[in-house]
């Protein structure tokens, strides 16, 4: 009985969605409305107006900078909410979780130790080169957070925690928000609006510097937040 009800719900959801999708403009045409309104201007003027060859970075950090600013606040709030929900103190986080003293596979530890430096260098490249090639702060930060989680899973909890020293951990977690506030206020002081970029073409290096500052902030903040969320969930109350 329950199975029939579930199938009925799925069919009732599929029919209108499929009908709507069938009426959309054909997939992949360059003349679709989504590709002809507003986007040609971004593609044409993005690199010179916003300062990054990667137009996705231009949109994220310049044209829609407020949006991204709100978003880093959202992810920071999610960290605060997770910490508040689980009520974890830093001391509990440092305590050895059960199973931490279990013997680890020497093969896994060796392989992880061997590839970790390469992953770390790759994240640095992604963050610092993100405005000129595919990549950026979010992508690099996610991979670095995954690297910290991988290290604390294979080489031990304490080793992972030592990568983010306890005294600087809150600052690292807030790095993305702080970078946005700093660049935003600089833009306010120098160019008259929050998160405004200098528009003169002589000041291209300033724009590039601000983009890189934002990318580094997003990368460091993202990695610290992902790792802390993992440790929070792992910690015993």
């Amino acid at each position, binding site marked *: 009985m329950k199975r029939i009800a579930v199938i009925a719900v799925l069919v009732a959801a599929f029919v209108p969605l499929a009908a709507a999708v069938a009426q959309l403009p054909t*997939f992949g045409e360059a003349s679709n409305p989504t590709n002809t309104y507003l986007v040609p201007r971004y593609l044409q003027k993005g690199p010179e107006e916003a300062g990054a060859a990667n137009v996705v970075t231009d949109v994220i950090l310049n044209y829609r900078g407020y949006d991204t600013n709100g978003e880093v606040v959202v992810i920071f709030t*999610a960290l605060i909410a997770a910490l508040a929900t689980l009520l974890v103190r830093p001391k509990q986080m440092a305590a050895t979780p059960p199973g931490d003293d279990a013997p680890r596979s020497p093969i896994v530890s060796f392989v992880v130790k061997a590839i970790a430096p390469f992953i770390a260098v790759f994240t640095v490249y992604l963050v610092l080169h993100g405005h000129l090639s595919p990549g950026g702060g979010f992508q690099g930060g996610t991979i670095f957070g995954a690297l910290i989680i991988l290290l604390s899973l294979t080489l031990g909890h304490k080793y992972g925690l030592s990568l983010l020293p306890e005294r600087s951990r809150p600052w690292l977690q807030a790095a993305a928000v702080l970078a946005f506030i700093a660049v935003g206020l600089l833009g306010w002081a120098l160019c008259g609006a929050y998160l405004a970029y200098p528009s003169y073409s002589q000041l291209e290096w300033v724009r590039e510097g601000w983009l890189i500052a934002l990318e580094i902030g997003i990368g460091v903040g993202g990695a610290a937040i992902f790792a802390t969320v993992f440790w929070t969930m792992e910690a015993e109350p």
Partner: protein
Amino acid sequence: MIRALWANIDYVASVVLFLIGLYAVIAKNNLIKKFMGINIMETAVFALIISVGTVRHGSPPIMGAGARAPFINPLPQALILTGIVVAVSTTALALSLIIRIYRQCGTIEADELRRLE
């Protein structure tokens, strides 16, 4: 109708993925499986919006030496990058709530939780 669906088969794939997520949400009993269903639905929406911006034989929207038109639409990609981060935030919060429920009630099966009330 069938021909129009076939021409937009990439969008139909997103719809099917969305329904797989919906199935997990309404048919599964475990809270973590339910939330995995919500994550699958989010992924389906992201895939749909990204594929709306696709241009056939387009190159990535990165200007510089050797770049040539047509370019893939950069706007959906930028918007979805934002969406992915928000999805990660909701996932972190939901998983913490589920852990808290497990500590408080000793179970994360929806019907057992209902019986506990």
